[in-house]
């Protein structure tokens, strides 16, 4: 979640409640389980880590929701690194989904390119696992495990196709609707 919040700040400095609203819009029903304090916990951690700075807006100095958060240079570097990072075997679909949305919103990277990079990496892995699976004798236990890995990779690859189709036609829509 930290990375997704950082990447959203790359578009523009924001209030906590605004970030939360964007996250919930992106995640739809999946975002409903996020409680209202979670975004502030994340922002405080990011601030301590030196990745964001917090400025109080003029006029209402003591109201916490008037805080405006912005990326530090270190935060910007972390966002750039996160965008190009490929995550598997613990594929966090929500994280990847937010990555595409944030990249498009801040015009940091082309979501279609991010999908292509992820696909290349998964195909390399699929190749390696499949070669191992083909080399296993029929009925081997390891073969069964490898088959499971192959099926998961294929499911992820199909979802990436759907992502590519959605983002190929979404040049003018930010946040993926």
């Amino acid at each position: 979640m930290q990375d997704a919040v950082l990447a959203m700040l790359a578009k523009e400095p924001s209030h906590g409640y605004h970030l939360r609203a964007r996250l919930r819009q992106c995640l739809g029903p999946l975002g409903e389980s996020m409680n209202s304090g979670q975004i502030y916990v994340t922002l405080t951690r990011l601030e301590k880590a030196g990745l964001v700075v917090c400025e109080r807006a003029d006029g209402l100095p003591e109201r916490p929701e008037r805080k405006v958060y912005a990326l530090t240079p270190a935060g910007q570097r972390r966002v750039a690194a996160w965008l190009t990072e490929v995550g598997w075997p613990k594929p966090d679909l929500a994280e990847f989904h937010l990555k595409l949305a944030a990249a498009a919103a801040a015009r940091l990277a082309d979501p279609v390119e991010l999908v292509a990079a992820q696909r290349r990496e998964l195909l390399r892995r699929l190749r390696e696992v499949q070669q191992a699976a083909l080399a296993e004798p029929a009925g081997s236990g390891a073969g069964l495990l490898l088959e499971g890995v192959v099926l998961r990779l294929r499911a992820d690859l199909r979802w990436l196709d759907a992502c590519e189709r959605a983002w190929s036609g979404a040049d003018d829509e930010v946040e993926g609707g």
Partner: protein
Amino acid sequence: MNVSDVVVRARGLVKTHGQGQSRVRAVDEVDLEVPQGQTLTVMGPSGCGKSTLLHLLGGLERPTGGEVWVAGRRVDTLSERALARMRRRSVGFVFQAFHLVEELSAAENVELPALLAGRSRRQARRCANLLLERVGLADRARHLPSQLSGGQRQRVAIARALANEPLVVLADEPTGNLDTAATLDVLRIFEELRSAGQTLVIVTHDERVAATADRLVSMRDGMFVDDTRLAASHPRGLGGLIGLGD
């Protein structure tokens, strides 16, 4: 890359279908070089032009523009006769629907290309037996295609494609009509061919088939949009791949 190592080469390849308003560029300015021993897969959605590309490379169709070279020889300008001879000698085809001759046995189907290329009946028979053994169907040599499963038929078709020791095997959706077990049998054969140094070009929309390749190109609207080397090994090994390293 040494030019003589390139088995199939395409330059500015274009193929258009239809006329006037409904004119479509099925293949749009494609450049490609397939070196000896490479397994290349072409992936893309239906209608992206990948089958047309394969037909152009194998001389089954002629391009609207551009050039095709097979083993250092330009083939798109050949006469029909010379083109047919080039296909027989240099290219092996594998199709989604197998395209076996239903009236002939498995062995006779595999013999056919060798006989057409002028080899003796005895040589052709011997070669067919070896090839059927190679695809695990020695005991099905006398069966008619209708007596074989889909996977077995495709393995016969692969044996037939290899009959004249082609420079390149071109396969168009080779597992498109097969179930999982039969797909694995075919993938195993491709993997063996790959390790034996056979040059292969496979068109597919099955990620599983695509992942057998050394190199994968993605095609959209007649053009290549991505070109990936798959042969890199994962630094953490197989265990790392499934999270055992964490």
